[in-house]
């Protein structure tokens, strides 16, 4: 095992214990060097360290480059420092270290042009985000406790800056580029954990600005809905497995923002149930998304490593060769689709429950929240389930669509990798099972965010317990259903033991008698009805050469889905900026004499100006 992996795992385990201690004991840890670990920090710290350790374990056998391990450890350390920093400068330094370390990991040695281009996009995006964050900090520092116009600007800057890191639409453009380019365990770390520092920063910015006004809550809800719905719609149209997962991160950030938004609206309207359950649901989803998205990206990384391709239409039938990867991926897929009884359902249930509670409370002015968030979550969940039916079905079921064993045989991932994925899959189940017991731990982080908002910790815990009770009922029914199904399957197995059951039938083969793996459903054909329904927003391009005549020759069909935010906003803005700034290019003559001359001219002018 490389020393970098050992160090990473040992460091993460060493850090998890104090993080959990702070979370459970509610005693913040402070250090004069600008470190403050309160319950919100400890919550994020736990997520960072837990998933990072498993990502390191996953790659312990396959990744051998010391440089990669160096930057991996740097990334984990800087993420941990980011959520522990109470000093603005320390926060910005660790934030930048985090961005740069992950940039180096994205370019993956810099040998491939695709990785370099993706890294470049990420580099620009993350620094635009940091620019907004610096503006926000400078503003909040210059006018502490300012209200009105200035607080508006600061909060909007925080949303853009931290939203860029988190992958909020329309600032998400770096995710679908950077995640596919990075190695599997790095994209698991970045998508599962690193983008959550954006959520953390957003929450800290809100507390720093002295709480969120109601319009900010509504803004978060709208941003969350846009990210959630469009993220999953774009995910449906993808052919690249990791690109698909990257768009699902956009979608899940949308769900988290939706939760936070309902929480802030609830707080400013004095609706305790909505406030607590919205924020707690969003925070809970941060944990859950880290677990199942980490798991899914590790699974995608294992598939990529084994087959050498991420193109779903080239894969198929991997469940026979990689049973562990397939099974854990299935668990992650169920969890991310928000299906009971796994952990994705648990957190989405809290947001649902809080939103439905509004209707019962009688405050009909908030009914809009219920309508918007419940309908939005339901739409997102349904589309996500469709998308993962596609991803899992195409990649793991059926027959291989291309010859995959040519270079080397496709085999299961190494045992360390399987262990990492199995732990994450087990966590998906365990979190869902233990949610009713552990849900009160969320009261600490919630009270940090709502500090001074008029909701005490006992109220928070009461609301969480109420939600846990309802959740136990709903999830229990599904758990019973699952157990019943499993028992029925077991019974069938026992009854049929020792007897051969053979049943073969020919599927309708369109009159073609020699079916081949190429005739299976493809990812594009599976998603086609939904994709063409949303074509106006995704702008999917189709190239289609129909078969013609009685003896048709070659025909082809392909789709390509760009990204609306990139094609219609960033690309035009950047090319316009390049064209305008290009006018200044005459300044760059390439002659050192001229440069020294300009510097000296400026210095002499300043000198004369001073003494005039």
């Amino acid at each position: 095992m490389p020393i970098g992996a050992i160090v990473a795992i040992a460091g993460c385990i060493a850090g998890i214990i104090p993080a959990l201690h702070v979370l459970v004991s509610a005693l913040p840890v402070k250090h004069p060097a600008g470190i403050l670990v309160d319950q919100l920090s400890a919550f994020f710290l736990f997520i960072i360290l837990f998933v990072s350790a498993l990502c390191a374990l996953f790659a312990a056998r396959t990744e051998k480059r010391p440089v990669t391990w160096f930057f991996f450890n740097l990334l984990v350390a800087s993420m941990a420092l980011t959520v522990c920093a109470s000093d603005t400068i320390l926060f910005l330094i660790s934030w930048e270290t985090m961005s740069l370390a992950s940039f180096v990991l994205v370019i993956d040695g810099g040998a491939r042009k695709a990785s370099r281009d993706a890294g470049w996009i990420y580099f620009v995006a993350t620094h635009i985000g940091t620019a907004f964050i610096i503006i926000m900090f400078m503003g909040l520092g210059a006018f502490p406790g300012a209200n009105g116009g200035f607080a508006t600007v600061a909060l909007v800057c925080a949303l853009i800056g931290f939203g860029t890191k988190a992958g909020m639409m329309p600032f998400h453009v770096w995710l679908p580029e950077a995640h596919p380019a990075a190695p599997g365990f790095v994209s698991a770390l970045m998508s599962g954990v690193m983008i959550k520092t954006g959520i953390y920063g957003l929450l800290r910015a809100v507390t720093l600005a002295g709480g969120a006004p109601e319009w900010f809550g509504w803004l978060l809800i709208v941003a969350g809905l846009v990210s959630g719905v469009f993220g999953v719609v774009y995910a449906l149209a993808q052919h690249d497995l990791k690109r698909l997962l990257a768009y699902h991160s956009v979608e899940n950030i949308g769900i988290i923002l939706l939760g936070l938004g309902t929480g802030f609206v609830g707080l400013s309207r004095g609706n305790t149930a909505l406030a607590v359950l919205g924020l707690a649901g969003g925070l809970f989803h941060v944990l859950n998304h880290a677990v199942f998205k980490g798991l899914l990206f590790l699974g995608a990384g294992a598939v990529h490593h084994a087959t050498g391709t991420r193109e779903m239409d080239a894969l198929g039938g991997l469940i026979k060769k990689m049973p562990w990867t397939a099974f854990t991926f299935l668990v992650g897929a169920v969890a991310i689709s928000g299906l009971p009884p796994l952990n994705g359902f648990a957190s989405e249930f809290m947001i649902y429950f809080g939103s439905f509670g509004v209707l019962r409370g009688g405050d009909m002015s908030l009914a809009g929240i219920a309508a918007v968030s419940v309908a939005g979550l339901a739409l997102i969940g349904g589309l996500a389930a469709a998308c993962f039916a596609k991803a899992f079905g195409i990649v793991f079921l059926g027959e291989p669509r291309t010859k995959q064993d040519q270079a080397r045989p496709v085999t299961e991932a190494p045992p360390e990798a399987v262990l990492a994925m199995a732990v994450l899959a087990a966590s998906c189940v365990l979190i869902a099972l233990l949610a009713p017991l552990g849900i009160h731990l969320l009261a600490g982080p919630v009270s940090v965010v709502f500090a001074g908002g008029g909701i005490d910790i006992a109220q928070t815990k009461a609301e969480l317990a109420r939600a846990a009770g309802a959740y136990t009922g709903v999830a229990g029914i599904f758990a019973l259903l699952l157990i019943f199904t499993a028992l029925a399957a077991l019974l069938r197995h026992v009854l049929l033991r020792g007897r051969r059951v053979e049943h073969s039938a020919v599927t309708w083969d369109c009159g073609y008698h020699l079916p081949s793996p190429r005739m299976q459903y493809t990812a594009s054909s599976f998603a086609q009805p939904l994709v063409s329904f949303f074509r106006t927003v995704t702008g999917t391009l189709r190239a289609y050469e129909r078969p013609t005549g009685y003896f048709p020759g070659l025909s082809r069909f392909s789709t390509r889905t760009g990204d609306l935010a990139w094609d219609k906003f960033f690309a035009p803005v950047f090319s316009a900026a390049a064209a305008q700034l290009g006018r200044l290019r005459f300044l760059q003559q390439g002659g050192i004499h001229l440069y020294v001359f300009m510097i000296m001219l400026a210095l002499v002018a300043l000198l004369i100006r001073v003494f005039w």
Partner: protein
Amino acid sequence: MLYETMMVVVILAGLVILGSSRIRMYIRMAALQGVVLGFLPLALERSLPAARTALLMAVAIVLKGVVFPWLFTRAMREMSVKRERSPIGGYSGAIIFGILAFILSLWLSNKWVLHPSLAGRTPEIAVPAALFTVLTGVYVIMTRKKALSQAIGYLVMENGVWIFGLSLAGEIPVLVELGMLLDVFVAVFVMGIATLKLQRGFGHMDADRLNELKG
């Protein structure tokens, strides 16, 4: 009187560098400046120097009077470059610049309000001489085309900073001064290596033709 004589020598050496085309002359004049300025603490204190000042003087004189000239001469011989080729602005332009720079330096030093503690101690010519030497160095960097001449220009500029530092700040920690010398040493060394690489990589060391890599 000693101090003023030294400054006159330094200024004249600067003018020679401006008006000359031979790189050997640049090296000699820069070395002359360096050696003269090495004795500057003596002229300022008018007494036997303390041990650390003596050390500083020794290092400065050895570096600027022996090591740098040797390095430059060697580089010059290896690259077989003896003359500067048609500098921007010409040699007469350089002399005119020198005169204008001297006037500007005098004018600026008149405006310059020295700290009261220095008012009686610092000779009046210190500020204009220092400014003029810095400007000379910058002008050499700006107009001469051989990379070697530019390295020498950098050294001349540093000589100006040296006058400034020693004459205006009463007490400079010896560590700072030594650090400055080390800085110059490394810079000259790196420039020497860079010019050699230029010569080998491009077949010339003309800094005005280095824009081939411009985007």
